[in-house]
């Protein structure tokens, strides 16, 4: 694969970056297209079709409970991406400042942040979502928040370890010698130098969020029934799996492809961005 890409002139972009980028673009494109157009309204019960018609020319992924599966799958990409963006955004928005505080703050504060993050890390996201659902009722927001909270610790850890490396560098000492305060050092010197690290982390966290969303929806804790969602489609397919496997295959493939896409993208970006921006100077 790599040699093929190299011969085709894409050698400098590594294979995982290209493949991951393509898959992620595909998912994003599906989500965008489904906003303005789907072959059939995804959640409408169609007339003139069987309950579980197999894939055909007019219904590419077949029919499930008289609904068009292809329309549901591409509309489901919206849910997946929305949950991913919100969950990862929340995790980054909270986790990155916490990691910075842990790296730059006094020792006790750093200990507090890191031990708390250990605690959250030890707590499964699913359990958290079940708890939150029990308190606030099930729904997409609860799922997003639960996944987001569960991803905060990894962001805090990655930010902290990256920041510690940058803080030990000469240019931070020089910046302090020039009168830069801690906030200025965090924003102007530390963050730009760990941006690559964080982008990689976001990509990997995104893949995890997609999986978690599907799992939550499968348990009936995420997306409500009137919204297309891959996890929920799997849930609905379970009782009829032996009769109509295509109900599970297509949403399953969609989950696999998007998770693979984001993981590959993360790997590719790691190779591109991570090998120490600092050392390249």
């Amino acid at each position, binding site marked *: 694969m790599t040699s093929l890409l190299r011969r085709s002139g894409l050698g400098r972009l590594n294979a995982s970056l290209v493949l991951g980028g393509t898959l992620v673009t595909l998912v994003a494109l599906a989500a965008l297209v489904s906003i303005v157009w789907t072959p059939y309204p995804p959640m409408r019960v169609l007339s003139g079709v069987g309950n579980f018609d197999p894939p055909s020319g007019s219904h590419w992924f077949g029919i499930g409970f008289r609904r068009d599966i292809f329309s549901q799958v591409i509309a489901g990409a919206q849910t997946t991406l929305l949950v991913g963006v919100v969950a990862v955004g929340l995790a980054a928005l909270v986790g990155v400042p916490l990691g910075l505080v842990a790296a730059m703050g006094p020792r006790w504060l750093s200990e507090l942040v890191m031990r708390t993050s250990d605690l959250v890390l030890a707590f499964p996201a699913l359990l958290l979502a079940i708890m939150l659902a029990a308190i606030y009722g099930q729904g997409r927001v609860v799922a997003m928040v639960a996944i987001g909270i569960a991803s905060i610790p990894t962001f805090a850890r990655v930010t902290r370890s990256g920041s510690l490396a940058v803080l030990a560098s000469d*240019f931070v000492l*020089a910046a302090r*010698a*020039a*009168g*830069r305060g801690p906030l200025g050092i965090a924003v102007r010197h530390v963050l730009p130098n760990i941006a690559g690290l964080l982008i990689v982390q976001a990509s990997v966290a995104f893949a995890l969020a997609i999986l978690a969303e599907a799992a939550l929806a499968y348990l009936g804790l995420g997306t409500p029934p009137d919204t297309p969602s891959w996890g929920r489609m799997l849930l609905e397919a379970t009782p009829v799996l032996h009769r109509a496997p295509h109900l599970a295959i297509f949403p399953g493939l969609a989950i696999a492809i998007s998770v693979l896409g984001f993981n590959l993208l993360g790997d590719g970006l790691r190779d591109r961005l991570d090998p120490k921006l600092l050392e*390249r*100077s």
Partner: protein
Amino acid sequence: MTTDQPGRPALQVRDLSVTTRSGTHLLSDLTFAIADGERVGLIGESGSGKSLTALAVMGLLSESLTATGGIRVSGHERNLIGEREGALSRLRGTTMAMVFQEPMTALNPTMRVGQQVAEVLTIHRRARGAQARERAVALLDQVGLPEPAETAHAFPHQLSGGQRQRVVIAMALANDPALLVCDEPTTALDVTVQDKVLGLIVDGVEARDAALLFITHDLAVVSRVCERVLVMYGGRIVESGPVGQVFAAPRHHYTAGLVAASALTGPRGGLSAIPGTVPSAGRFPTGCVFRTRCAAATSECEIQPRWDAAGAQGWACHHPIGAS
């Protein structure tokens, strides 16, 4: 102790000691002053405490170290030791500035160099926006970078070591500091570039009538740059005085050893070295810190020697060279 300058010196250090948490003394009772426009060298082997002295003056000591004594800079009433971090931040980059040893890592790799110079101005609200950028280009021009307007747009990795050190010097001089601290600024540079950078530093402080504390282990560099020299060993100043006088007629045996080691031909025609190695921190002997490596040491040296002075030259030795 060391000759104090009349009036209020740019930098006044009195009985500065730095200790670790476990009580190890890294610096002991440093006392010296640098007048406006005076250029003072700080020499000694690695591990003598030179860089630590610089960091202590800048208030940049690691939190695990404790400093006691007095550090005063002109234009600030209070002792810098124990001063709030906010007040120190305002002094750093304005009243006092520092140039570090390693130009390759002293600049932020993700920021254009012009922006980094401009930032030193904007942090202290000396200039803003387009004005700061213009000043930055002017400063880059002053330190002799070719095509300063274009260089300002370069990232650090696009510049050579010498060019980067020029940028670092431009940053240090940006706000016309009263005190410039240079920690081995030319050690990492080519010999041919070294002299130009040294000239730049001397011109820069002369134009601003700034005081210069210049750390190096290269005696040739000290004689090129400085008027006065402080010789450090084991976290103490063992000798001080005008550069010519101290190097021509050292009184402390350590200084004599340094001078002999720097001369290309030693007494027997080869390179001469000071016997033994610098002990690690906390393992220096009591009394005279140099006595374990000193040929002239006697039992008397187990007592900390008094500071003697003759004219502008001072030393701490029980058996100074040239005494009967």
